[in-house]
């Protein structure tokens, strides 16, 4: 049923039907906004990413072959758009062992362990440096390999691994270690 709806949405969007465009946005805006929120540093930047992502979705809809789920195809576009935004930021990947510029952000009185919902985890992610956040998102949540991350971000595999390691170290410092091995 979902696939049939997707086909209908796709054909309508390809014909330039405004109701179909609006329906597609309403159906996928919330899950895609959650995706780009993980990469952005705040809500405003996430909205910029979402806007650019949906423009690309409507512009490149004729490239959707229909052999997979429409949601998966849109999600890939959103991730790529978010990474494009990050690449525009100067020196967003910091290959350094010096955590001190960001350490103060983790000194919080919030009881993180007792409030582990998505919004709280998202707030933790937003406190990470952009490079750590991007690599952690791509590897831990989106399932990319280090080779793919290195290719996507234009870094080496070693840098990707070190960024992931440091991101985990950051997150562990503020989450109760009793819940995590």
């Amino acid at each position: 049923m979902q696939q049939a709806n997707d086909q209908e949405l796709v054909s309508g969007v390809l014909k330039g039907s405004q109701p179909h465009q609006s329906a597609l946005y309403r159906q996928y805006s919330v899950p895609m906004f959650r995706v780009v929120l993980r990469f952005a540093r705040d809500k405003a930047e996430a909205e910029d990413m979402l806007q650019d992502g949906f423009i690309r979705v409507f512009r490149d809809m004729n490239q959707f072959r229909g052999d997979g789920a429409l949601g998966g195809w849109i999600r890939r576009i959103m991730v790529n758009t978010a990474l494009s935004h990050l690449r525009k930021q100067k020196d967003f990947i910091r290959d350094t062992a010096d955590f001190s510029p960001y350490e103060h952000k983790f000194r919080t009185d919030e009881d993180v362990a007792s409030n582990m919902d998505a919004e709280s985890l998202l707030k933790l992610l937003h406190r990470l440096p952009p490079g750590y956040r991007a690599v952690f998102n791509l590897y831990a949540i989106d399932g990319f390999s280090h080779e793919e991350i290195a290719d996507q971000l234009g870094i080496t595999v070693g840098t990707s691994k070190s960024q992931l390691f440091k991101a985990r170290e950051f997150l562990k410092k503020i989450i109760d270690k009793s819940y995590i091995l």
Partner: protein
Amino acid sequence: MTDSKDYRSIDELFKRTFDELPDAPSAGGWDVPSDKVWEHVQTRIQTPKSGWTAQTLALVSAFAVVLLIGLYFLVASGSDKQENKAATETANSTANVSTSTTAAPIAPAVAPVMAPATQTETVALEKAAPRVATTPKAPKKTEPFKSKMQVSQSVAAPEKPAHNEAVNHADAPARPSGALPLPGTKPASPNSTVAKHRASWQKPLHYLPVLRSKPTIPVAPASLRVKTN
């Protein structure tokens, strides 16, 4: 609220938390984008289409008009130049022919001068207006001009005093000027100037093409026409 004890690592904590979110937006609204996003998206996906149509139509129309005007002036100026050139050449050829026609009685002096000029102009006119020059009417109209030349030769020859009448030159071909070869001279070789000159006169001269309705070459006077039985 998730059960943190189920997670084996921090990676899994984040992954399962975000993957297991319901489709509906959260009550707090943290995962709902503002309405401005859709407005901007709608503007961006609609504007290029309408703008493209209006601007492209205007540009293409303007370009087509300019192109047509330019082509019109180009063709018009080209045909004007061609007409002027053809008219000038026609006028010149008419003047030459009329001059030569009036000088026809002094045929030996005029004929060699007239013939090359007429041929040159015929070639020029063929280049300028090949369709006119190659019309099948040309052979018919060469008749009066050809007979006029023959008349001029036959009339002029007796007027020229013979250099040596005692020598029989009956077998020698007549010279265009009507003069007889000197006694004891050999016939001219085929490559000599005299032979070429003679050969050129043996070819029928083409009548000038008529470009306008007005005849360009006047008919020879009756006194100069050859009487045929």
